[in-house]
């Protein structure tokens, strides 16, 4: 059985005859999957579209990521559940879910299983989701406004990310999460960069906005790039991806440190 959400991935496979599933279950009109609950904790149903995230995402970085995706037509159809289901390293919401330390909620006849995002993806387009499980939601703790997502690509619309970076600074919990997309087989969390950033916020004060020094931003970028495991492919070279990540890491830090 194959599940069809927004169709932006599966329909391409069907149109080109790459897949001929015997049974397709379309879930795009399942109301229970389309809800967003917010009460300090966010539960986003798998059927929430990117268009909906622009207005109400429960995360600034997620709204920014949704904004980078495709075009109005694609954002009206594609869903967070679909992004998780496809589990591409280039999925734009996935670095954000990594940085938010989100939980993926899976359900089967046997019951519900909650998987930390860090354990969810196992490789390019591979995840721990079993064939009998449906992705029903993603959940995370609201982390405040100091967060951003950015990506590099050939144009602002309709382009697969060459490298993407999400940064979340949860000032209340004194936590820094960074997620890197399109630069490894799964979404990467650069632990050294996160530790370095925590040190900067310890020093500057978690509750206050600050302007990081140029050398601190540069060092963060260097640590981000060092954690990536990019490859050369049609969209860009590994060297270009590392360079882009270093620039984005520095820029993201400078941006979010000034938001409190």
């Amino acid at each position, binding site marked *: 059985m194959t599940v069809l959400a927004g169709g932006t991935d599966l329909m391409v496979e*069907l149109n080109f005859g790459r897949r001929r599933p015997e049974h397709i279950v379309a879930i795009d009109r399942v109301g229970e999957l389309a809800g967003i609950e917010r009460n300090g904790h966010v539960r986003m149903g798998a059927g929430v579209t990117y268009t909906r995230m622009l207005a109400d995402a429960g995360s600034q970085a997620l709204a920014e990521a949704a904004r980078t995706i495709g*075009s109005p*037509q694609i954002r009206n159809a594609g869903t967070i559940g679909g992004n998780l289901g496809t589990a591409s390293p280039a999925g734009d919401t996935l670095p954000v879910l990594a940085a938010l330390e989100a939980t993926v909620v899976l359900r089967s006849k046997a019951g519900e299983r909650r998987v930390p995002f860090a354990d969810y993806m196992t490789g390019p387009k591979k995840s721990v989701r079993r064939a009998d499980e449906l992705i029903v939601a993603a959940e995370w703790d609201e982390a405040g406004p100091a967060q951003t997502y950015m990506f590099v690509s050939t144009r*602002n619309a309709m382009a697969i990310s060459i490298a993407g970076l999400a940064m979340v600074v949860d000032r209340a919990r004194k936590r820094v999460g960074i997620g890197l997309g399109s630069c490894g087989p799964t979404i990467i969390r650069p632990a050294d960069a996160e530790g370095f950033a925590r040190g900067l916020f310890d020093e500057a004060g978690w509750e206050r906005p600050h302007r990081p020094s140029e050398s601190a931003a540069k060092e963060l970028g260097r640590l981000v790039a060092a954690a990536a495991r990019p490859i050369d492919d049609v969209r860009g070279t590994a060297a270009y991806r590392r360079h882009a990540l270093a620039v984005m890491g520095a820029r993201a830090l400078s941006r979010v440190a000034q938001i409190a």
Partner: protein
Amino acid sequence: MTRITVTVNGAREETAVEAHESLLTTLRERLGLPGSKNACEQGECGSCSVLLDDVLVCACLVLAASVDGREVRTVESLADGSALDPVQRAFVETGAVQCGFCTPGLVVATHALLRENPEPSLAEIREALSGNLCRCTGYGQIVEAVQRAAKTMYLHGLDDE
């Protein structure tokens, strides 16, 4: 084959569709509506843009079997006989049409934009049409057409003649 009932441009249609068929194929091959163009079949070009329950989507990315009971509006619904609607007229008047292949999708996307945002800025127009590729014009006249249509519709409403 699966039988579906779908309202297309206001008319109730009943048809049988293949299990893996896209709405685009159904419109073009079964319902005789070739206005939505078949180009990339992967949601990249926007030539097959339609409104599904009033939401702008690429018909090639919609599974036909899943539109049972729903409402679809295509570019064919816009003109009243030979009388073009304000968006179509603006495209003609500004010369936003060269080969014409992308035009139906752009016209439908323009409708979706102007319904939500009657006075879009230049950036908002470019953003709203970012999912529609044109390989002839360079987009200048297309953007102009949207501005012209917005002005006409703002001044006279949708039914302007």
